[in-house]
């Protein structure tokens, strides 16, 4: 099985532990990731705050590159990247004029032929049975609170992935691997990652709400599939503890970390050791 791979800036920068985890996990599962040649940034929040055209053009360039390389399915593990790519793809598919305009702007023909998938969808494509056949280690010591954040399911009409209010796809995977996911209330609440530098105060409040709720419902780890959520909840946790004088001690892991552990990979191989809040393996 092979997927095109669009790491995005985060996975090549401050969230390179996510890339490490994803790659290790898929190596073990025999899934090949072919990184998109000369990809560029998707533009993230900045592009659609400053110039809407750019917010379509930057992902469109990547779509065009993917198409040119004959890539049918492109994995973007970062939900922000994946959402921007999907949004651009739909705009291009829906309107001939946009298609022509974008092909002109990005200097490559683009039709939106490449399908964009997120990390969870890749696991679904591999199949739970195939994953289970390679499991060496049960995750039964973990009570994960699966945290989807904003952009894995929103906007639902664009992404058409899982239930936008009560998603359950990560739980399904983790339950199969032996973990006992908890029911909690903030699966899709925003952690404020986008504001982590500009407005740390609010971010700490939001992060507190989420981590505390997960803890209250008995979770011993928060599992996410978003580099920004992970970074934010992990790195800002010290500030949360300080502000609310509350011991949280909630490790924040990637979905691929959890799957990787079940496949017998070590925390070092997965980059879990580089997280701020330590996961007791």
């Amino acid at each position, binding site marked *: 099985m092979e997927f095109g791979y669009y790491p995005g800036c985060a996975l090549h920068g401050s969230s390179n532990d996510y890339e490490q985890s994803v790659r290790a996990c898929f190596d073990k599962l025999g899934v090949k990731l072919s990184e998109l040649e000369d990809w560029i940034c998707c533009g993230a929040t900045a592009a659609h705050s400053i110039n*809407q055209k750019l917010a379509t*053009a930057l992902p469109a360039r990547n779509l065009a590159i993917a198409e040119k390389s004959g890539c049918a399915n492109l994995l973007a593990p970062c939900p922000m990247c994946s959402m921007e790519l999907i949004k651009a793809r739909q705009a291009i598919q829906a309107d001939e004029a946009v298609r022509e305009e974008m092909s002109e702007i990005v200097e490559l023909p683009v039709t939106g032929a490449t399908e964009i998938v997120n990390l969870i969808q890749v696991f679904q494509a591999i199949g739970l049975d195939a994953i289970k056949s390679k499991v060496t280690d049960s995750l039964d010591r973990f009570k994960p609170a699966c945290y989807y954040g904003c952009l894995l399911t929103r906007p639902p009409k664009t992404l058409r992935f899982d239930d936008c209010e009560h998603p359950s796809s990560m739980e399904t995977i983790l339950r199969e691997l032996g973990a006992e996911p908890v029911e909690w209330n903030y699966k899709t609440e925003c952690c404020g990652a986008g504001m982590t*530098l500009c407005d740390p105060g609010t971010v700490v409040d939001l992060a507190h709400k989420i981590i505390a709720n997960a803890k209250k419902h008995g979770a011993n780890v928060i599992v996410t599939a978003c580099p920004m959520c992970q970074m934010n909840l992990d790195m800002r946790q010290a500030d949360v503890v300080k502000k609310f004088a509350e011991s949280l001690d909630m490790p924040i892991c990637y979905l691929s970390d959890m799957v990787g552990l079940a496949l017998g990979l070590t925390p070092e191989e997965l980059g879990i050791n580089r997280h701020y809040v330590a996961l007791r393996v």
Partner: protein
Amino acid sequence: MSESPKRLIADVERLAHTQVNDCYQCGKCTAGCPRAGVMDAGPTRLIRLVQTGDVLEAAACESVWQCVSCLTCTTRCPKSVNIAGVVDALRQISVERNITARKYSRTVLFQKEFLRNIRRNGRTNELELVAAWKLVAFFDDWSPFKALADARLGIPMLTRHKLHFKPGSPVKDKAVVRRIFDRCAAKRKSETEQEQD
């Protein structure tokens, strides 16, 4: 000198691909907004301001930059108004007209610096981005306190190999990225001018 409210509304609607008059002000967007509690004008009010043609007043609101783009508002809107898209449009208008709420000029500078960074490198170089932003922002507000905030986050990031002075793999064709930026800027300009004619 005042601009036609009609034209401004049309601009917002075009940028956001939505019809603001669909909104019946039910407040569900504000109800679900994680930041509504701190906003000067919640999403419901922003849309109302656009409906009444007070687009520039809306664009100058702090809340435009307090939005975390979580899309909860758009997702739950009973009338399928693209509220987050309207906020994005207001951001763009506020930047283009330089009417951003003073308190959030740092945020705008960050976004601009972010794009400049991509324009130059094709991808973000986080260390360069943060350094450049802190610098321009310092020259904007002269606050050493703000400039140095978060510096303490840097060391543990470095020790965790999460920050790099040189990003992993550079983009080869950087010129095309620049051309994409320039074309998008030019398109926006010509579209606005057309509308004004």
